[in-house]
């Protein structure tokens, strides 16, 4: 198990290197730091001095890959690639345009992100699986058809609509919760409840339909017929046999996103004014703060790869046939 994990982590290193090279190419080769400076300072009436100053403040005044002016190891370390890209492997994300440490921002903003994302994820999982089980129980009846039709309808509505509509009805018409804001501790409950509910409703359609197809695939298998032949009730078949076996395909889709919960949701957080990583990313995109976007891309792929490894581990837990070796 340990040996497998170590190998798995080593395998994922090249992928992170690939992500790093890709972001490096995207941010520094496609457009040179000069272009970025010109963009930030305004296209017209920008002096070379101002560009140099901008680059120097942000540490972009070095050669891209090889610093031939320096000596020894500085040839490698005195470059943009080493200082801005390779340094992310030790989780050193540098500073944002307003001079704050990105690493520090990330650690303080993870909390609020998680406060929304984790409950949304857990409540959502339970809700979607129950709804899908219900549809499976009443499969091929009018109830099932209505459920599927509802799912397709909910799937076709833009995610922005749920947020805007929810804010309008619950906060503006009924005045149940504040429109936006955030507070730590128990006082924050009134701020997080609406984003969580909207987050759960937002993906009822696609998720429930997806779980329903998984359950329907399982229910056609031989062991289900055996279970019924033993005289088990339909409910017992569904909960004790089908649900357990369907866990394997469900886990593939679910475990991989658990680490990504730290990143929060871009839309929800920015609409509800939650000071999490999602709104941080949106603010960075709007302010064209490239160092923050770069850090977020790297962090996102790192968490995704962690999710893939967790998925493999979870297989061994739910499916005794799988042995990691």
């Amino acid at each position, binding site marked *: 198990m340990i040996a497998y994990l170590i190998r798995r982590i080593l395998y994922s290193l090249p992928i992170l290197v690939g992500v790093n090279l890709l972001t490096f190419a995207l941010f520094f080769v*496609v457009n040179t730091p000069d272009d*970025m400076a010109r*963009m930030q300072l305004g296209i017209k009436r920008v002096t070379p001095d101002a560009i140099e100053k901008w680059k120097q403040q942000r540490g972009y005044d070095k050669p891209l890959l090889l610093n031939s002016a320096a000596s020894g190891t500085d040839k490698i370390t005195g470059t943009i690639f080493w200082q801005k890209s390779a340094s992310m492997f030790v989780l050193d994300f540098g500073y944002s345009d307003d001079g704050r440490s990105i690493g520090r921002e990330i650690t303080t903003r993870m909390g609020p992100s998680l406060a929304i994302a984790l409950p949304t994820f857990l409540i959502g999982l339970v809700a979607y699986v129950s709804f899908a089980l219900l549809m499976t129980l009443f499969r091929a009846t009018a109830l099932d058809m209505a459920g599927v039709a509802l799912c*397709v309808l909910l799937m076709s509505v*833009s995610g922005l609509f749920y947020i805007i509509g929810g804010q*309008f009805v619950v906060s503006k018409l009924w005045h149940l919760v504040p429109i936006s804001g955030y507070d730590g501790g128990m006082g924050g409950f009134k701020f997080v409840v609406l984003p969580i509910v909207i987050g759960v409703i937002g993906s009822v359609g696609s998720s429930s339909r997806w779980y329903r197809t998984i359950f329907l695939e399982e229910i056609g298998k031989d062991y289900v017929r055996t279970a019924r032949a033993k005289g088990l009730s339909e409910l017992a078949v569904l909960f004790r046999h089908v649900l357990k076996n369907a866990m394997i395909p469900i886990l593939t889709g679910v475990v991989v996103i658990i680490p990504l919960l730290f*990143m929060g949701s871009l839309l929800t957080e920015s609409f509800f004014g939650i000071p999490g990583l999602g709104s941080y990313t949106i603010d960075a995109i709007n302010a*064209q703060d490239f160092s923050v976007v770069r850090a977020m891309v790297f962090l996102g792929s790192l968490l995704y790869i962690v999710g893939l490894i967790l998925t493999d581990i979870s297989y061994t837990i739910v499916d005794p046939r799988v042995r990691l070796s």
Partner: protein
Amino acid sequence: MSFVPVMLWSDALVFLLLLAGIASAWYVRQREHLLLPWRRVATSSVAMVSLLVLSFFLVVGLLDTLHYRVALPEQSNGKTVYSPEVLSVFDKLVTPLRAQTEKTYSAPLAVTLYAKESTSDASGNILRDYPRLRYGGVHLTDEQQRDGDVLWRGLTGALVGLMVGLAIVFGSKRWLAQRGWPLRALLIATLIISALIGMTVNLAAAYHVLGTDKVGQDVLYLSLKSIRTGLIIGTVTTLVTLPLALLLGIAAGYLRGWVDDVIQYVYTVLSSIPSVLLIAAAVLMMQVTIDTHPQWFDTSASRADLRLVFLCMILGVTSWTGLCRLLRGETLKLRELEYIQAAQAFGVSSFRILTRHIMPNVMHIVLISLVMDFSGLVLAEAVLSYVGVGVDPSMISFGTMINAARLEMGREPMVWWALAAAFGFMLVLVLAANLFADAVRDAFDPRFNRTEVVT
């Protein structure tokens, strides 16, 4: 009035797609076995009604794709100069909607502006009242007549539309029946759509049916213009995903070895970056390139258009990995089958096996995944525009409409119609696409049972 046709990049790609679509339809028509699943789609009433709705959107989108520039009045030196404004045939058709802009917000079917304004009368007294609109309902002498007039216009419009619909229905009834298409559902849908169009056209002649936005533009016009953007995002993206996924997927599955390793590495790297972030990064960088090279573009429309095409490319680059993985898996399965081994034993070259034997047998996966992706892409456009990495802010799209209207959420009383129109049009488009995609999947996916044979 003379004009010069303008071919924007996205127009060229749309026509390329249209040609490809017509060519493949012609190819399929010749071959009974390829036609069979489509016949199954055609028996489903939900799918056919969705297709009818989609084709309405498609017609609007295509009309909006034929662009031209009008010549400005003759210059003194005799040279013709063309207007920097790029128009489309669709713009020409709905000229009143485009040109009749009000001062600012007005509610759907309103005759006055949405906010009170101070005006002074002849004797110099200042009055605060809702000023009348410049175009909406100007034929009315009294605001009180509006309800009756709206009702009358709506009813007559719907009636005329219904007549036209009935004519179409009776004209095509026999033709439809011969093909075994779901007659009743199609007829009802045609009647409803034509009545709705008739009603809207007749009302739009005198009112702003869906109101006006902040700068007084007609919301109905904006919604109809957004259709093209949505359709382009949903379809042009496939021009990137399809070749990448198809070529790399079957090459990886069939050739295996180091080719497989490299391709797997590339798509794992790409798919491990959260797609919104990758798109955001790429769009930000593209914006830098566009902003630092203003000399590339002769009109603002061509700049906005290039950004749209780039956005499609970027969406394509981030979304081919899923399909590629599916195709690789399927090819791995297919290459062990007897008929492939027979072809190999006969000494057929790898390239020929791939194109003749593997590719046709994975096409159903390609088709299903492309049709299923369409609605997701239309929805993604709105979200990306909100995040600030979508289409150019000057380009009319559902995303930019929602984004502009969102700022008015806090206004009292609320300006709701622009949001409602954008979400409504998007819902109809995406719902029709989803329902059609489901029917296509059911008809093409061999895992679904197909005991009934359609002839």
